[in-house]
C-alpha cells in the first residue's frame, strides 16, 4: 500500500490519548504520507490520568508524563501543531479550516476531539474566583497553586465521580480541608454498584474527607477572599477552592456542523469510521458498538482511546479490523488501587470476595450466569482472572468465588 499513501495527507483533530496514539499507530501500520495533528491545547501531549492523582501532589510539570517523547514525533515524521483550533470541516471539499482562517486539504480525517468538562448552571459560578474543572494540565496546575497559596485550604469538590474523588484524595494529601458534594444519594452512582460507593465513601471519611450526599449546589456567593457554596437544603460551605467534577460534554459540534451523524457522541462503525468514508472518529468523542456486550456506548477511558486509535490506524491502512475489546479502567485514591474490567451495565447479581488483607476485595458482576465485569480493589489477581473469564465466557461456579478457602487460581472457579 506504500505507493498509494505516499502523497496523501492524514489530519488528526485533537492530540491527546486517542489522536497521538493513532498517529504513531498509523506510521507503524505503514502510512507513508503526511500526518498532521492539531490541538488547541498548547501543552505538549501528556497523560491525563495522573492529573488528579500523582501530578496534583507533586511539583512536576507534564514533562514527566508525556504520551510520547518529543524525539519520537521527529523520527516518525508526525507534525504536531499545538495551540491551534480547528473550526470547521468541509467533507465535500475534504478540507478543514483553522481558527486563523487557513484551509488544509486532507485525504483522511480523524476526529479525536474528546470531551470537555460540563459546567452546571449554578448561580454565581461564573463570577466566582478559584473555581476550576479538572481536565487539563492547566486546570491541575491552577488547583495545585490555589491550595498551596491558601492558608485555610478549604476545598469543595462538586461531584463525587472518579475524578472528583481522586482530586479529593490528592488535595487531602496536600493538607487541604476537603468536602465532596454529591447530588445523588451515593458517590459514583452513575458508574458503580452501591457496595463500591459505600467502600469509597468510607475510605474518604477514614482519611478525613467529608463526603456529603443528596447535596444539590444551587448558588455560589462571592465573598472578598473566598466563596460560599450553597446547597438547596440550606447547607453553606466556605471554600477557598472549588473543583467542578460533574461530568463531561462530548466535543461533537465540529463533526455535527459538518453533517456527520451524531448519536450520544460521534457515531462510528466497528472500524471507527463515521458516515463519511474519509472521516474517522476515536476516543471519548465516539459512540460505538461493543461486539462482546452487543450494545452501543460511549466510554471515557484511556483503554478505549488507545485501542480505538489502533483500530482506526489499521482500517485507514486498509487492513481488516474490528474494534472488539473488553473495556478496562483504573482509579487511585489514597492507598487504594481500583482496577475495573468489563461493563457491569445490566447486572442482576453481585458476588463479593473479601481477601484477608483489609481494603483488598473484588466485586463480581453477573447477569444470570454470565460474568459482566469485575472491580478489583488492591487485588490485581481478580482483575486479571476476571478479564480471562469475561473474554472466554467460561461458566463459573458462583458459590466458589466468595469462598476464601478456595485458592485463587484460574481453574478453581470453573463450573
Amino acid at each position: 500500500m506504500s505507493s498509494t499513501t505516499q502523497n496523501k495527507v492524514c489530519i488528526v483533530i485533537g492530540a491527546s490519548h486517542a489522536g497521538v496514539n493513532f498517529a504513531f499507530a498509523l506510521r507503524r501500520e505503514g502510512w507513508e504520507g503526511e500526518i498532521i495533528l492539531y490541538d488547541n491545547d498548547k501543552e505538549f501531549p501528556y497523560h491525563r490520568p495522573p492529573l488528579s492523582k500523582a501530578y496534583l501532589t507533586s511539583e512536576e510539570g507534564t514533562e514527566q508524563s508525556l504520551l510520547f517523547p518529543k524525539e519520537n514525533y521527529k523520527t516518525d515524521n508526525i507534525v504536531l501543531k499545538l495551540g491551534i483550533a480547528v473550526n470547521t470541516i468541509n467533507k465535500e471539499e475534504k478540507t478543514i479550516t483553522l481558527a486563523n482562517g487557513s484551509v488544509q486539504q486532507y485525504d483522511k480525517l480523524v476526529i479525536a476531539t474528546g470531551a470537555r468538562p460540563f459546567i452546571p448552571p449554578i448561580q454565581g459560578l461564573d463570577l466566582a474566583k478559584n473555581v476550576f474543572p479538572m481536565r487539563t494540565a492547566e486546570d491541575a496546575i491552577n488547583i495545585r497553586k490555589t491550595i498551596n497559596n491558601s492558608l485555610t485550604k478549604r476545598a469543595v469538590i462538586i461531584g463525587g465521580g472518579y475524578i472528583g474523588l481522586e482530586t479529593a484524595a490528592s488535595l487531602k494529601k496536600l493538607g487541604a480541608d476537603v468536602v465532596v458534594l454529591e447530588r445523588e444519594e451515593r458517590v459514583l452512582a452513575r458508574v458503580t454498584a452501591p457496595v463500591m460507593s459505600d467502600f469509597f465513601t468510607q475510605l474518604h471519611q477514614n482519611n478525613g474527607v467529608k463526603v456529603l450526599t443528596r447535596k444539590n449546589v444551587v448558588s455560589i456567593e462571592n465573598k472578598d477572599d473566598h466563596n460560599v457554596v450553597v446547597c438547596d437544603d440550606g447547607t453553606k460551605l466556605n471554600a477557598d477552592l472549588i473543583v467542578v467534577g460533574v461530568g463531561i460534554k462530548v466535543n461533537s459540534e465540529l463533526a455535527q456542523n459538518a453533517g456527520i451523524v451524531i448519536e450520544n457522541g460521534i457515531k462510528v462503525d466497528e472500524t471507527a469510521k463515521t458516515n463519511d468514508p474519509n472521516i474517522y472518529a476515536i476516543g471519548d468523542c465516539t459512540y460505538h458498538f461493543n461486539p462482546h456486550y452487543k450494545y452501543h456506548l460511549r466510554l471515557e477511558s484511556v483503554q478505549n482511546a488507545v485501542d480505538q486509535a489502533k483500530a482506526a490506524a489499521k482500517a485507514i491502512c486498509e487492513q481488516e479490523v474490528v474494534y472488539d475489546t473488553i473495556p478496562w479502567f483504573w482509579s487511585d485514591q489514597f492507598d487504594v488501587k481500583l482496577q475495573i474490567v468489563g461493563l457491569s451495565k445490566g447486572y442482576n447479581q453481585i458476588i463479593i470476595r473479601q481477601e484477608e488483607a483489609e481494603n483488598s476485595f473484588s466485586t463480581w458482576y453477573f447477569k444470570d450466569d454470565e460474568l459482566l465485569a469485575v472491580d478489583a480493589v488492591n487485588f490485581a489477581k481478580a482483575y486479571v482472572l476476571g478479564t480471562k473469564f469475561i473474554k472466554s465466557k467460561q461458566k463459573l461456579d458462583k458459590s466458589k468465588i466468595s469462598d476464601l478457602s478456595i485458592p485463587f487460581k484460574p481453574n478453581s472457579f470453573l463450573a
Partner: protein
Amino acid sequence: MAKITFITSDGNTTIVEGSTGSVMELAVQNKIKGIDGDCGGVCSCATCHVHVNPEQWDKTGAPDELENDMLEFDDNVSEYSRLSCQMKVSEDLDGLILTVAK
C-alpha cells in the same frame, strides 16, 4: 547510562541506551516491537511484559505484590517475568538482556 538489549518476538535484537525513566518508556522511545505501555506505566495493561535473562535476575530483582498479581495468570508468564514499566533505568541495569513477551 545503561545499555539494555531487547529481543523481540520476530527475533530482532536492539540495544538501547538510557539513564532515566522506566524501562517501558525507554522501549517505547526506541520503538521496541511488542512494548506498548498502554496504561502509561500504572501496572494495569501488561503491554510492557518482558522476560529477564535468568542469569541477570539479581540485577532487576523480583516484582512487588501488585506487579506479581498482574503477571501470575498471564498466558506467557515465566519465572523471570517483569512488567518493564515497574523497572527504573539505572546504572544497575547496564548490560541487561530482556526478551519481549508475546
